[in-house]
């Protein structure tokens, strides 16, 4: 059936409304309808269609497009049929076709609301067809978006989970290990549900990631012939071909007219890329020395490509406040003043600028707007003037807010008292310090202090001889000689004291060093646990953590229905503890073996060469593993303890 066409005006511009050949899109193009469409609505996203009744003189078609986001409004498009003779018939034809297509699209959709409501279609005669033109439900436009935010859908989507597991190997290890070691009492499904219920965020991120695809880009610039075996080769993928057709309708037209009849596909493309047309489309300059004219391609001027394209932005109503052209005109045009700057003068032989601009505009027209409203829909109330709403919006955006007064900060006053209690650290009643202080009497203290000062005073030279006070006597052989007046042995500055101080400082330096830099071996074999054992320990740790987390989840919910679950998880916790013990034993066995080996080697070496090697005991046995798991074990035991005490109650 031929595609019905009608002359209709959209936003006060004349044009032609029709369908694409595959009947997937309802398009409207201005002017004679030869250029690319300004408005193109996917039939699949058309919700409601309304038309003025046959009896009314005006023929207007109103099409509602489904919102692209969940909570947007349906966007209406108004087309006034302008044909003087045939408006009604055209309108009806188009409307019927829409109805058919919608019915087809929804034929297999389970949630078609059947009866009409609110009298959408006015034409009683085509009530049957209209019935299928149902009020749109969200079915078509937003399946993917709803899916992402619906936790239950994500959890049921096994495919998604599998792909995530494939992608993330550590996660899959944990999953496999936990699954294989879970107690039989928990069913597979329940385990899965539990496992993923904690990780819904991961699933969601993965789904969104999978859904992202690359946007449109200037395809011609990316197709370059490569030199293979001395001859130029070019390969085209189906997506690339699609993109070329989308961005350059001229090429599409030529293709449709010429393939497969006069030209084969391969020929078509090879000739196309060699022709001047492709150069023009890319925006490169054409010099006379370039190859001869291709008889087919170079007939067309690339202007056809761009001319019919009316910018979407200028087609819609631009709010007067930001309409630069209109404002200039309002003030009498701009042909005044100095000539424009060198950069801004229009140039002759730079076709690439025009090409790139028009191409970018085309591509951007396809892209969903980031601020959530389509340019076309700025006139929400009808095809006429700016709706009040949009003008208000524009004003809001442009208004200057910086110079207003600062808004009063809304502060909530907290009444905090009793500071002191909070800043005392754990005082278990009376501390040792206080006891000691209680023993002192102020008089004693005064005496001590003053006598101290007097000792110093007695010294010659009105001050103190620092050297004597420090008590470092380099010449004394050993500190056991009692220097006169001071206690024997230990005194301030004695060598022993100094040495002790030095040792302490170096010890803490060493500790800081290990903390900061660690040891090289720490990555693969921390504390000298052999690498494969380390891997096992890591996995065991992850699974134990998983089980303990599930345990707390069910234990603390206080839900009577989950009592069995709690029991299962308690069991799993117990098994984790046993597993850790087993690992420790294994480590110990390995260690003992290595140790004996080392001793053996030393003995042999001694036998051979008579030299004794130092015996360094092998580290990394049971103690190391236990230290490794210390915190995990504490958590597991704690969980177990709480469970058993709750059981007893």
């Amino acid at each position, binding site marked *: 059936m031929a595609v019905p066409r009608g002359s209709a005006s959209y936003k006060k511009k004349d044009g032609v409304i029709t369908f694409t050949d595959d009947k997937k899109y309802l398009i409207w193009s201005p002017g004679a309808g030869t250029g690319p469409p300004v408005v193109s609505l996917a039939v699949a996203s058309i919700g409601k269609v309304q038309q003025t009744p046959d009896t009314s003189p005006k023929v207007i078609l109103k099409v509602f497009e489904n919102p692209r986001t969940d909570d947007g409004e349906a966007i209406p498009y108004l087309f006034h049929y302008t044909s003087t003779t045939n408006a009604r018939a055209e309108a009806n034809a188009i409307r019927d076709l829409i109805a058919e297509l919608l019915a087809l699209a929804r034929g297999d959709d389970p949630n078609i609301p059947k009866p009409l409501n609110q009298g959408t279609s006015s034409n009683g005669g085509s009530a049957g067809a209209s019935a299928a033109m149902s009020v749109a439900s969200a079915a078509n436009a937003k399946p993917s978006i709803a899916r992402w935010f619906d936790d239950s859908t994500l959890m049921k989507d096994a495919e998604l989970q599998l792909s995530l597991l494939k992608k993330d190997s550590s996660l899959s290890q944990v999953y496999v290990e936990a699954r294989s070691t879970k107690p039989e009492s928990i069913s597979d499904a329940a385990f899965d549900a539990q496992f993923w219920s904690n990780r819904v965020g991961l699933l969601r991120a993965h789904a969104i990631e999978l859904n992202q695809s690359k946007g449109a880009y200037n395809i011609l610039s990316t197709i370059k012939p490569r030199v293979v075996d001395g001859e130029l080769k070019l390969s085209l993928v189906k997506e690339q071909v699609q993109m070329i057709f989308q961005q350059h309708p001229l090429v599409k037209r030529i293709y449709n007219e010429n393939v497969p009849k006069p030209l084969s596909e391969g020929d078509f493309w090879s000739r196309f890329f060699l022709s001047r047309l492709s150069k023009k489309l890319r925006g490169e300059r054409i010099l006379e020395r370039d190859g001869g004219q291709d008889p087919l391609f170079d007939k067309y001027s690339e202007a056809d490509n761009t001319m019919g394209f009316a910018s979407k932005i200028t087609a819609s109503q631009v709010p007067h406040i930001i309409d630069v052209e209109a404002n200039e005109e309002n003030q009498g045009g701009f042909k005044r003043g100095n000539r424009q700057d060198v950069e801004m003068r229009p140039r002759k032989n730079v076709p690439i600028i025009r090409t790139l601009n028009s191409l970018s505009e085309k591509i951007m027209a396809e892209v969903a707007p980031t601020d959530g409203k389509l340019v076309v829909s700025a006139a929400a109330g009808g095809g006429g003037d700016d709706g009040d709403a949009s003008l208000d919006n524009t004003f809001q955006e442009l208004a200057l807010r910086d110079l207003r007064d600062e808004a009063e900060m809304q502060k909530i006053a907290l009444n905090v008292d009793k500071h002191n209690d909070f800043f005392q650290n754990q005082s278990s009643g009376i501390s040792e310090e206080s006891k000691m202080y209680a023993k002192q009497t*102020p008089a004693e203290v005064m005496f001590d*202090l003053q006598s101290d000062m007097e000792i110093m005073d007695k010294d010659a030279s009105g001050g103190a001889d620092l050297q004597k006070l420090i008590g470092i006597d380099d010449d004394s052989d050993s500190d056991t000689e009692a220097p006169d007046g001071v206690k024997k042995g230990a005194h301030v500055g004695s060598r022993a004291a100094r040495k002790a*101080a030095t040792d302490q400082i170096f010890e803490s330096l060493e500790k800081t060093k290990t903390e900061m830099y660690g040891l090289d071996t720490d990555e693969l074999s921390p504390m000298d646990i052999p690498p494969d054992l380390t891997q096992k320990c890591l996995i065991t740790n992850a699974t134990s953590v998983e089980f303990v987390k599930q345990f707390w989840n069910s234990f603390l919910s206080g839900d009577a229905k989950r009592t069995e679950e709690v029991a299962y998880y308690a069991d799993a916790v117990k098994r984790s503890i046993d597993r850790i013990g087993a690992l420790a034993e294994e480590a110990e066995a390995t260690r003992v073996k290595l140790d004996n080996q080392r001793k053996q080697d030393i003995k042999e070496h001694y036998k051979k060469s008579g030299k004794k090697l130092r015996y360094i005991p092998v580290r990394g046995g049971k103690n190391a593993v236990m230290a490794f798991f210390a915190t995990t074990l504490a958590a597991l035991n704690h969980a177990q303890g709480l469970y058993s005490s709750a059981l007893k109650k």
Partner: protein
Amino acid sequence: MPTPQDVVDASVHYQGEQTQSTIPSLLSVIIDTNPRAWSALNNTLTLTQAVANALVFTNAHLAGDNANEVSIIAAHCNRAVWLYPTPPRRNTNAEAAQPPLTGNEFPKFAEIKHSVFTSLRELVSETTEADIKSTTTTQISGALTLALTHINKTSISLTTSRGAGYGGGPTTGSGPVATSTDGLPGLNARIVVLSVSDSNPAQYITTMNAVFAAAHSQIPIDTLCLRGNPTFLQQASYLTRGIFIRAKEPQGIVQYLMLGLNRLPPSFEFASETSPNESSGKKGGGRGGTPFLLPNAELVDFRAACFCHRRVIDTGFVCSVCLSIFCEVPSEGECLTCKSKLQLGNYGARPVVA
């Protein structure tokens, strides 16, 4: 910087490393003179001995560079007092002003020693029994504040004098950065505290204010704790990237001071960013690209304690308004600090097990 003549000239010139920082360092020593604590320590270490050791430490600091400076403050039980530089005296006692100059001592050292001991003597003589009875701890926050203000004043006076006199300062080109980012311009300052007493909870807010000010100006607060448990100073050291040493052997005090508390100016500590194993430039840097480690192995106990009983807890209840922690639901659901009414969710429902 080698001039063309130097290159041509056959003699050998010693180009001292320009990394010699010409920024003066100001060391502030705060000596905790809590009489009761010192009286408890009297058998191992007396106050005068400790002060003498501290003076050796400051003399070493002064010897490091001509422009280095020192300030010494005593944190007494009821007030903080300047020991050096001496505040203008009320009684103009000429004799007290000038130390007797012998030919044996570097004048600056003598001056400091004289000033410190004179002020100390005065402090002790003015202490009455009532003062000692009043408190068992020391006014550390006051001393910290005094030190910080002095540092600030010095830094300002140095930058203005430098700008006027030198026209940009001698550290041009190859010298290290004259200021650390956010730090005080023109001065490397640090504070060393000799502590013998516990932290006074009533002084928490004031002490922490001083600590945060120091942290903001990148002034490390190092502490040598001879006895007691000064928890605020531990936190202070942690926050300001300082050192906290708990001396196991107080009689070796001189070694603790000289070995443990000596620091290079920050320009050295952050100098070489190109060392291969540097860890985000925290303590990296140093002359050969080897990082300069500080003996800071004391772990600060950051565990939360509940506000009602001061018990350390693992899990508890947090008020959503003021974030205070409780080990059990407060009575009537009213938060103890901010008095806002709180509601409990479904946590803590008795677990149904069997």
